[in-house]
């Protein structure tokens, strides 16, 4: 087992496209770190640089105490699981799993023992004689995991390993990967574009955009205290709603003017927001921090917006209500299900100002204020 350290890592492709820009990250021994971001954010490239499948343009990568920039992939002591599994189609499951061990010149008995142990952990003992073609998606994924496990690497690398599975299986395999990590204690770097996977799996989550780390923290820390608007909008489903408006000072009151109505800026945010009176800010509200009920515990006279219901999506106990104001035509509230509201009607929607976030204007506007919890 080993730590993985990336220092000032830059990757520039031919033609000058910078896909990874000044990437700094220390992954502790046995830690499970998830790199997450939209496609093209450089997360896979970063992983491939750790694996040695891509060269660095500048910077250093260490695995343990050793700088591995010029170490060939096979000597880095890592194992990688690919999105399309990359099982060797012409070999049986067993042959797939022991290929690396054979190349290392291990004895037949040792190879067999390791392979059987891995097969047992993953419950694929019955599949060893099959070719990958004869396996289901989930089974293939298990074999790919098995191929990684048998090598007992210092570090596991996962490149969107669940993307090719259907939703149900994905949730199941997600849990298995987490359990596997807990029993093997191997340092793990996991790349995904799925924010839910990132939140559930990672000890730490690294949110990336355009080759730059936006935030690197525990999942809950990122969820509750996003550093900028991009991070806030990326984690959470349905995503956070953003209201672009102005700060108004009226007497001793500080108000957020959405355009159609004004909301009182909560006490905890006054210190950060007061100097910005008169300027544009963005208020972020998670769908769960909104309510259509006047009886909601946070409902007061000066924290509601009149909004028109454009769509109702029932989810069972809860429902997602798509709401619109003049300036913000797509806002989602995640509320308790009931049958009293109708599409087309306009009603006051209450906002829990204890749980809102304020950002500077712009797509990646920096956080101005968020309440510590």
């Amino acid at each position, binding site marked *: 087992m080993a730590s993985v350290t990336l220092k000032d890592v830059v990757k520039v492709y031919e033609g000058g496209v910078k896909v990874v820009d000044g990437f700094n990250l220390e992954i502790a021994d046995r830690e499970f770190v998830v790199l997450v971001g939209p496609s093209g954010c450089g997360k896979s490239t970063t992983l491939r640089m750790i694996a040695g499948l891509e060269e660095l343009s500048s910077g250093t990568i260490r695995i343990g105490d050793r700088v591995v920039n010029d170490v060939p992939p096979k000597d880095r002591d890592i194992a990688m699981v690919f999105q399309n599994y990359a099982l060797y189609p012409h070999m049986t499951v067993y042959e797939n799993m022991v290929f690396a061990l054979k190349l290392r010149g291990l004895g037949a008995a040792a190879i067999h023992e390791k392979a059987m142990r891995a097969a047992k952990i993953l419950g694929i003992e019955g599949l060893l004689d099959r070719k990958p073609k004869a396996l289901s998606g989930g089974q*293939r994924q298990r074999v790919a995991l098995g191929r990684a496990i048998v090598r007992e690497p210092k570090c596991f690398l996962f490149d969107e390993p669940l993307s090719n599975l259907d939703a149900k299986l994905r949730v199941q395999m997600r849990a298995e990967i987490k359990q596997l990590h807990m029993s093997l204690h191997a340092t793990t770097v996991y790349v995904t574009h799925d924010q839910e996977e990132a939140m559930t799996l990672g000890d730490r989550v690294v949110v990336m955009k355009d080759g730059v780390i936006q935030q690197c923290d525990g999942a809950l820390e990122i969820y509750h205290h996003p550093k900028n608007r991009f991070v806030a909008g990326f984690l959470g489903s349905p995503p956070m709603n953003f209201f672009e408006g102005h700060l108004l000072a009226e007497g001793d009151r500080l108000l957020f003017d959405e355009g159609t109505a004004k909301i009182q800026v909560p006490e905890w945010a006054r210190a950060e927001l007061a100097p910005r009176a008169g300027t544009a800010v963005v208020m972020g509200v998670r769908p769960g921090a909104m309510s259509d009920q006047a009886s909601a515990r946070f409902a007061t006279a000066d924290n509601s917006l009149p909004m028109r219901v454009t769509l109702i999506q029932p989810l069972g106990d809860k429902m997602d209500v798509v709401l619109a104001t003049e300036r913000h035509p797509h806002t989602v509230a995640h509320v308790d299900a009931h049958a009293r509201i109708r599409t087309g009607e306009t009603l006051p929607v209450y906002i829990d100002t204890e749980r809102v976030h304020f950002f500077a204007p712009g797509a990646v506007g920096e956080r101005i204020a968020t309440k510590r919890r």
Partner: protein
Amino acid sequence: MAAADSPFSSTFRQKPWSRAVVHLFLIVGSLVFVFPVLWMLSTSLKPIEQTLTPEPVWIPHPIEIGNYASTIAYIPFLRYALNTVFVCALATIGTTLSSALVAFSFTRLEWPGRNLLFGLTLATMMVPFPVVMVPLYSVYRTLGWIGTLKPLWVPTFFGSAFSIFLLRQFFMRIPKSLPEAMTLDGASEFRIFWQMYLPLSKAPLVVVAFFQLMYSWNDLLGPLLFLTDQSTFTLTLGLQAYQSQEGGTQWHYLMAASVMTTLPIVVLFFIVQRALFQGMSSTQNFEG
């Protein structure tokens, strides 16, 4: 074949008479092609008097099976056959191996000038053989190869442009993650070539091998140019020489020899037919 797969499905399936028309065309077409073959077969079984008659004889009487044994004694058929098999075996191995290796390099390895060289390789396909005939002859003469079988097989170990192209197109369909996974498993590039690209490319390799085999087997111009001694003649050249060496050609023996020359390729075709079509339609799926 399912109706949907038939090339005639959309237009011809509708009308009941269309099938008959299509079949008529196909039957007439195949008769045209099979006619010379049948004539060859028939002549090879005739006594000499029946080979050139004003009224064509289709069914020989008596049927002279013995023509075949006599042919082998009459011309050095076994010698020619042995030469041909030797050339074909080496040329087939040479083209298949070398083209695959070059195609692998063009697909998987990164080196400066790769694309330019690939373009040049393709460009050589546009040069007709007669253009390089004379320069090649002088090269082989300098090497002292004229009169030996070497000009017919040694060059095949330097790849053939078309085979390289065919294999490269196939190799490109192998997902990159497969060789990458092998790299991480500790395999060298040559091992990746040998243990992944070759086993995964059986079908196109069969195509390449079969085409080279057929070419070498049927080649007349090459042997005609480079072979000088009867003992090194291949079948095609041997038959050719045999035909012209006497005034009254022994047509029945010549046709018997021709049948024996044609038959192996035809038989082989039926054996590899499946792999051949699979290799040319290339619908293999590597997921998994």
